[in-house]
């Protein structure tokens, strides 16, 4: 187990280097010269060269990449093409904002989604199940940017309950963005919990537990839900990661100064260093969340843990078996 964990952690920088290289090449692919926008209308070759040297753009792209990596290792993410300031200053203060939104949303998703999903599974084929099903189906089909827009029109513009944009009004300004982000994920999450629970409820051990005379609550929460936890955690973890990356539209719509907002802004202004920094942060986060999910399998499920001991492959979810093999 420990060996596996260490291996995965050691693999992280390698993955990040490759991701960074790909993104670096990709963003430099379109051949647009970022310097053109920064120079005055008429400029001399000397001015151009000086600026290129300042940003390190006079060197071949691979050299640029290695210089950038060197900088990142020293905590220097480069200089923004647009603000001409340090990228790290521009990006770091946004990370807590995005994380806060994603964490609160995930917490609400778990708090509301788990009980509702379990109830749906327990009361399968009843009116309750049907209603939740239909509602979550509808919510799953609503694009988050439109949902946000509608909430904004109704509650901010119409009723004036919440500010339309920015985070200047404290908790009140977070209500709509979090709600917008939450609903589509919640809809999917409820369906995931429901199906995971349905899988477990029909298993032999649940029947055995009932036959032994266990109370219904114990059967549901201790036997079934515990076994359904693996797919639920996988999905919830994935949701958390994509809430930060996928919050792009929500952050843009409500002008929340998080990472997603910055990514869009950087793309629109072709600010490559800022984009790289944001994508790097998002990748680190995704990799860490993925690692935590994989490790939590072993923590929760003794069957998965045993695969590390015996090296025997089990029908485990997601990436487990191949990682062991590799």
């Amino acid at each position, binding site marked *: 187990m420990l060996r596996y964990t260490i291996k995965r952690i050691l693999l992280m920088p390698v*993955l*990040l280097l*490759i*991701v960074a290289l*790909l*993104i670096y090449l*990709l*963003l430099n*692919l*379109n051949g647009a010269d970022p310097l053109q926008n920064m120079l005055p209308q008429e400029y001399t070759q000397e001015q151009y060269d000086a600026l290129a040297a300042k940003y390190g753009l006079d060197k071949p792209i691979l050299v640029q990449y290695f210089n950038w990596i060197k900088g990142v290792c020293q905590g220097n993410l480069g200089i923004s093409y647009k603000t001409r300031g340090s990228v790290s200053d521009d990006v770091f203060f946004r990370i807590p904002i995005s994380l806060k939104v994603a964490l609160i949303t995930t917490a609400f998703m778990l708090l509301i989604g788990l009980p509702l999903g379990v109830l749906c599974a327990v009361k399968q084929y009843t009116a309750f199940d049907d209603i939740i099903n239909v509602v979550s*189906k*509808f919510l*799953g*089909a*609503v*694009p*988050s*940017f*439109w949902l946000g*827009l*509608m909430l*904004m*029109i109704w509650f901010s*513009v119409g009723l004036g309950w919440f500010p339309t944009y920015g985070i200047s009004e404290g908790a009140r300004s977070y209500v709509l963005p979090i709600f917008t982000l939450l609903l589509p994920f919640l809809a999917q999450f409820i*369906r*995931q919990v*429901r*199906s995971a629970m*349905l*899988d477990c409820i029909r298993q032999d051990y649940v029947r055995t537990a009932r036959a032994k005379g266990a109370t219904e609550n114990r059967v549901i929460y201790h036997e079934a839900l515990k076994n359904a936890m693996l797919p639920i955690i996988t999905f919830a973890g994935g949701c958390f*990661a*994509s809430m*930060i*990356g*996928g919050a*792009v*539209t929500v952050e*843009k719509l409500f002008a929340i100064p998080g990472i997603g907002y910055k*990514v*869009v802004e950087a*793309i*629109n202004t*072709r600010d490559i260093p800022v*984009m790289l920094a944001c*994508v790097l942060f*998002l*990748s680190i986060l*995704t*990799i860490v969340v*993925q690692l935590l999910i994989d490790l939590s399998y072993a923590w929760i499920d003794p069957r998965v843990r045993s695969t590390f001991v015996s090296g025997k492959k089990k029908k485990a979810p*997601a*990436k487990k078996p*191949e990682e062991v093999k*590799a």
Partner: protein
Amino acid sequence: MSKTKAPRLKKNSQAAEVWQSLIHRPAALIALIGCGIILFLALFADLLVPYDVAIRQSGKIKLLAPMTTDIYGKLHLLGTDNLGRDLLARVIHGARTAMEIGLISSLISLVISTILACMCAMLGGWVDNVIMRIVDVISCVPGMVVALAICAALGNGIPQLLVALTISSLPLHVKMVRSVALTVAKKDFVESAVALGAKPWYIMVRHLVPNLASVILINGTAQVSINIMQGATLGFIGLGVKAPTPEWGTMLADGLSYTMKDQYMVYIPGIVLCLAALSINTLGDCLRDALDPQLKGKA
């Protein structure tokens, strides 16, 4: 001849079975009709409204509310936008754009992922390793951000959007199809085919792909609606299709500045987008129930 005929007969009957189960469920029937309408709009958009109407700008008839008649005596069922373009025409031609984006990108990504997944399952070893490591690398970055970066690098336009959506949806497909392909590859009939000396590609085409068909179809349907949404999201941000092309996401973005007074500009494309996604999602769910009762209620 008879060798090829027998399985085809069976296939037809399964398709008929699925069709029967679809048209006998009200939800599936409504979803089918919804998808049919979108497909119809997409295919015959030019016959219904000339493309020119959807992109022609006119300052004299801008921001007309739905159901109003303009100064030329022409009725605009859904009104006109801030540049005087008929919204109904843009919705209809937007269906074509949405279908182009959703269907083609899902199709490409499904074909590629099926080939890759089958290669993983059949060849194993380093092929599997290399493919899965590449998938790992791509899935390190959230799908939306992959699509954003590719769109930013390649610029606006439908082909660029297709590349972006295909690549961003590839990792998940490869993982899902591969996991099923691995179990199929362990089945006895594959083993006996190997024992009989069948080549890997023959086994892939003859044994793996038919057994993966339901997974591919189910994932594919879901992916169509996801990709339509993603395409619209990118359009909303300003990275999707090129400017005059009617597209639901960009139409929404156009309406952003008019949320105070002319709210129909954001209601209409949004509702259309929701209905489209809803019917495709529902169709996907019903297809899944019909094709694979074991998977019922999943994902």
